[in-house]
């Protein structure tokens, strides 16, 4: 009975073997236990012995061939056997057919869960420390999230624990005196009466108050007031929360902690506007004025790296990366996506990158990584016709450049001979706000002056 000899798998990682030598030729007699062939594995050469007596009927590969393991390489049997038939049948017949009985693949381990990116600007902002237990109790008692900042915490790391919540709830309850009709309306509409402003005596909640709460947009959870006590009639009250609150808190912090100094320059935009026109005729990518300004900023920051910095505790970090942010009006408020590593980009590349980011910003689709990590910000309100304005530095950056409108103005122009003349030129104000803890007056002045030079010589920006 003939036997098909295969390329043996002799190691866990062995997937193919190279035949070094046949010890027998076709027609030779093979005794069980005699070496039949020698193969090369990654470690060494191994002789493989015959497993039964017989004649070597056919060698299917030659010395030097490399084949996958378990490939038939030889047929040994009696001299009168039909090798071709054996080979064809062998694929069908062997009871231990490899495909069906191979060792199952090890189970693929589940992938690691994605770790969410937390923008350093959003992290720690508006965060309230409250224990899971207290949170659960709060929800059960329908004390809404907006009220949690009213609760003082005595728990772990001064967080709010259950005890604090229960104490707060008691005081809340004290306030929640309401008329029976008010209570009825509130419960019919699944409204927590304790959150509603009471206009009756001693703050008692009247039916009218509940109805008002129901009709105000977004006021179902929150605070609702009618007139203030000093004669100002309220048109609408909105929660100071979310992005608005975050922006407010950040800018308050920036304005109050960073000593701002301001430097203004008037820039003659004639050459730049021409250059822009020519570039946009030649290029499929449309370049805006702001793009030119970004390029100029990048070059100016490379010259004055002290401005591309951030104060981190006791350290002033100066950055290699010039990540220039451009303030964009987005739904919900101002957002500043930044172009990463603008120092490595040409004007056109900057234009492409900024177009992408601005679109995303306007659609509210920016990723945290796109608005985090900026090192300098440009705020351009020129399109609103503003003559001049002062911007608040975007923390943790060291400076911000405010760009105002380009307007035709008469200026004094001096020609080569020194003759003075008054001409009408398109002039634009740029104003740098700098954090005096990081940037002193001289540096800020130099930077601003450099900006003027770069913008008035736009050919340099095209390189």
């Amino acid at each position, binding site marked *: 009975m003939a036997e098909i000899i295969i390329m043996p*798998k*002799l*190691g866990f990682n062995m997937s193919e073997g190279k035949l070094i030598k046949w010890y027998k030729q076709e027609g030779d007699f093979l005794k069980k236990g005699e070496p039949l062939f020698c193969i090369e594995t990654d470690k060494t050469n191994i002789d493989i012995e015959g497993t039964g007596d017989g004649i070597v009927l056919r060698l299917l590969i030659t010395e030097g061939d490399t084949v996958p393991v378990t490939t038939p390489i030889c047929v040994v049997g009696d001299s009168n056997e039909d090798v071709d038939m054996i080979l064809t049948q062998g694929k069908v017949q062997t*009871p*231990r057919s*490899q495909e069906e*009985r191979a060792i199952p693949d090890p*189970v693929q381990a589940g992938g690691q869960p994605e770790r969410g990116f937390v923008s350093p600007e959003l992290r720690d902002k508006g965060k309230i420390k409250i224990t899971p237990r207290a949170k659960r109790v709060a929800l059960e008692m329908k004390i809404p999230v907006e009220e949690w900042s009213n609760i003082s915490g005595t728990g772990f790391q001064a967080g709010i624990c259950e005890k604090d919540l229960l104490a707060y709830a008691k005081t809340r309850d004290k306030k929640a005196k309401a008329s029976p009709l008010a209570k009825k309306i509130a419960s019919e509409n699944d409204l927590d009466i304790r959150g509603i402003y009471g206009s009756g005596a001693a703050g008692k909640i009247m039916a009218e108050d509940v109805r008002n709460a129901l009709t105000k947009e977004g006021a179902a959870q929150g605070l609702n007031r009618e007139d203030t006590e000093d004669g100002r009639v309220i048109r609408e009250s909105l929660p100071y929360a979310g992005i608005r609150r975050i922006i407010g808190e950040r800018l308050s912090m920036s304005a109050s902690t960073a000593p701002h100094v301001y430097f203004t320059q008037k820039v003659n935009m004639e050459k730049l506007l021409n250059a822009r026109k020519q570039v946009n005729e030649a290029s499929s990518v449309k370049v805006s004025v702001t793009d030119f300004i970004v390029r100029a900023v990048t070059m100016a920051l490379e010259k004055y790296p002290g401005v591309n910095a951030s104060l981190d505790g006791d350290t002033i970090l100066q950055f290699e990366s010039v990540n220039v942010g451009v303030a964009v009006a987005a739904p919900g408020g101002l957002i500043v996506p930044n172009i990463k590593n603008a120092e490595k980009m040409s004007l056109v590349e900057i234009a492409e990158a900024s177009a992408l980011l601005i679109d995303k910003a306007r659609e509210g689709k920016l990723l945290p990584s796109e608005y985090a990590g900026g090192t300098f910000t440009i705020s351009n309100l020129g399109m609103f016709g503003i003559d001049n304005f002062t911007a608040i530095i975007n923390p943790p950056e060291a400076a911000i450049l405010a760009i105002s409108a380009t307007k035709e103005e008469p200026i004094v122009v001096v020609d080569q001979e020194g003759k003075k003349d008054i001409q009408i030129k398109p002039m634009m104000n740029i104003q740098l706000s700098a954090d005096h803890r990081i940037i002193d007056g001289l540096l800020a002045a130099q930077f601003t002056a450099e900006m003027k030079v770069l913008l008035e010589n736009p050919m340099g920006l095209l390189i």
Partner: protein
Amino acid sequence: MNVKDYSKEKLSWFYETMYTMRRFEEEVFEFYKKGMMAGLAHLYMGEEAVATGICGALNDNDYIGSTHRGHGHLIARGADLNRMMAEILGKKTGYSGGKGGSMHIMALDKGILGANGIVGGEIPIATGAAYKAKYKNSGQVAVSFMGDSATNEGTFHESLNMAAAWKLPCVYVIENNLYGISVDIRDVTNTPDLSVRAVSYNIPGVTVDGMDVLAVNEAAQKAVERARNGEGPTLIECKTYRWQGHHVGDPAVYRTRKSETEKQDWMERCPIDCFKDILLKEKVVDAKSLKRIEELVEEKIQEAVHFAAESDYPDAKEAYTDVFAAE
């Protein structure tokens, strides 16, 4: 002892047992070469006379402790070939439902305390079984198989010491095949004959030719009788050799360090072939009977091969069962 001192049945059993071991191991190797066997197996080819000779001196209710090279011991004690082969392939019909594999086959109904993956790990366990036999006065004997290298593990010394001190009915069998993976025992031990270690425990130590099944059996009979009589343990060293490397796929390049022809020299003394020659020469079993034995063995082997190949793998959730006994 002379071959003529044995009955035809006994001699036939010796031949059949050794032949079964050889064919079984060859088929295990085939599975491995075809990539159908996970992990590794440690083949007994060449050492058949040891397990056969020793186990041929035991009663059905005696105990044996085995090693990672344990297929031979299990076959000699009559373990089920189908369930052995299935276990080696990791199928659910194996002795352990696929949980143990080649190195951890246990068949307690045959007194097989288990193959063991830790060198020297089984020796105290077999000694504990011997303690039980003495404690219960059951007349049972425990045989502890081990390799040459296991005699350098602490547990060897601890076990022999206690068995000797308390005269436990134990027989310690060293299968000296010269190598612990690639390390030659002669390079790491100062006693060319390991049986000499018996002196430390004041028990008899004998060295026998591990390729001669009758020589092994003779030594085993003496040791077993001594144990059953309450005289204590014996250390038997069998000089033998493994045809294959330490495990399947081991090219065994270390063999030729002391002698170019080491493997071939030993293979010329094949226990099965030499035994067959003697049986025929002394005319105690005829060629036809031997051929019949070989055919019967081949049937059983092929049955085991098919059984194992066609059995299913266990369900993944079986991994969580059998950690503890049901209360």
